[in-house]
């Protein structure tokens, strides 16, 4: 199974995982062997930028054990100017049987969610992942500094 979700994802969300990758079969900090996807500016050389993330296509692979099976998943992320322009995930991480079993409790499924710019929505607040604790964020900052050193 091969799914592609094209989103204008911010670097902090996805690339943080890549930049901080420390173990496992992961390609870190270097473009994958294939050419950067079209729209990367026509340059085959990754271009450095202020934040230190080079444009290009990055691939990370991982495997993990569920109680029943060992699952593998491959994630390919395309970066342009610190923005994730494409995310492709290969692998079906959930067993088909359980998916069918749970299906009766799931009212709707969408294969792709692009979303809407929050600035274009009249909302009172946002529920999600961007706000988190001070102590935790401090620790992340420390790790990023360690990783950059």
């Amino acid at each position, binding site marked *: 199974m091969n799914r592609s979700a094209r989103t204008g994802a911010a670097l902090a969300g996805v690339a943080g995982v890549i930049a901080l990758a420390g173990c496992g079969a992961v390609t870190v900090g270097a473009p994958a062997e294939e050419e950067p996807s079209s729209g990367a500016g026509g340059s085959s050389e990754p271009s450095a930028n202020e934040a230190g993330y080079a444009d290009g296509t990055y691939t990370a692979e991982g495997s993990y054990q569920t109680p029943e099976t060992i699952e593998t998943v491959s994630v390919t992320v395309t970066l342009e100017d610190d923005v994730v322009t494409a995310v492709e995930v290969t692998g079906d991480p959930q067993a088909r049987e359980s998916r069918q079993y749970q299906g009766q409790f799931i009212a709707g499924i969408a294969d792709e969610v692009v979303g809407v710019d*929050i600035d274009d929505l009249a909302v009172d607040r946002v529920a999600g992942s961007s706000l988190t604790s001070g102590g935790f964020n401090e620790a992340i900052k420390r790790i990023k500094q360690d990783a950059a050193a």
Partner: protein
Amino acid sequence: MTATWRFDAIGTGWRIDTPEPLPEDIREDVSGAIAAFDAAWSRFRGDSLVARLAPGGEAPAPPDAADMLDAYAELGRATGGAVNPLVGASLERLGYDAAYSLRAQDPVAAPADWRARLTWRDGTLRLRGRATIDVGALGKGRLVDRVAELIPGPAVVDASGDLRVRGVPQRVALEHPYDPRRAIGVVTVTDGALCASAANRRAWGDGLHHVLDARTGAPVRTVAATWALAETAMSADAAATALFFEAGPEYAHAHGVDWVRMLTDGRAEWSLGSRIERGEAELFT
């Protein structure tokens, strides 16, 4: 809403909105309730009850123990053991410890026999053997409920992801887990709770984050973010955790919880009852 009170507590940002500023005595009640909860349940301080119980032992059960651990027992049953209140050592093992070391070692599973090790009968909380209690699956929701109960009249209690609303319609954007500038949907909450949980909310490395499968001690990989709507924040928080696992939709159904979740492959799933038809929920799919 004209008055906003912001503060940091239990390691997260809080915001309470009310029509009028809260009087000092109510603020003190709120601060006291949060301090008492933290003193009982924080994994991140050496003098908490769960820290003192970690080597094993017993103590008078704090007021929230029975409700929270009863809910854990049900979550554990529903998820086949994926949710377990003795998961603290598994989190510490991955680096999510009191010092925020964020240095991961190989995962360790939480003790599968936790029901035999941890009991909360007759007002006594008893732990047999060494383990670290972690109520992260629903503890913050419980505390949000406690705080909301202390505030009279219309109010919004928002503890960064756990929201309890009374009498003030709130339009809430569901933040895209991979792009904080975008929303995958919007829900309106007037009386009730919305809890959001995201795997990247507290993530510190290669797939390392705070939502673990207790059976393996490894972080969940298939679900990126969940949102659950329920009457109480504890119920919503518990369902938001359950939805990281395959049994989550059934658990939510059994508890009358509406929900949305986004998988790591970019798909979204939801069960929102009649909220979409009533104009109280919208998904941008």
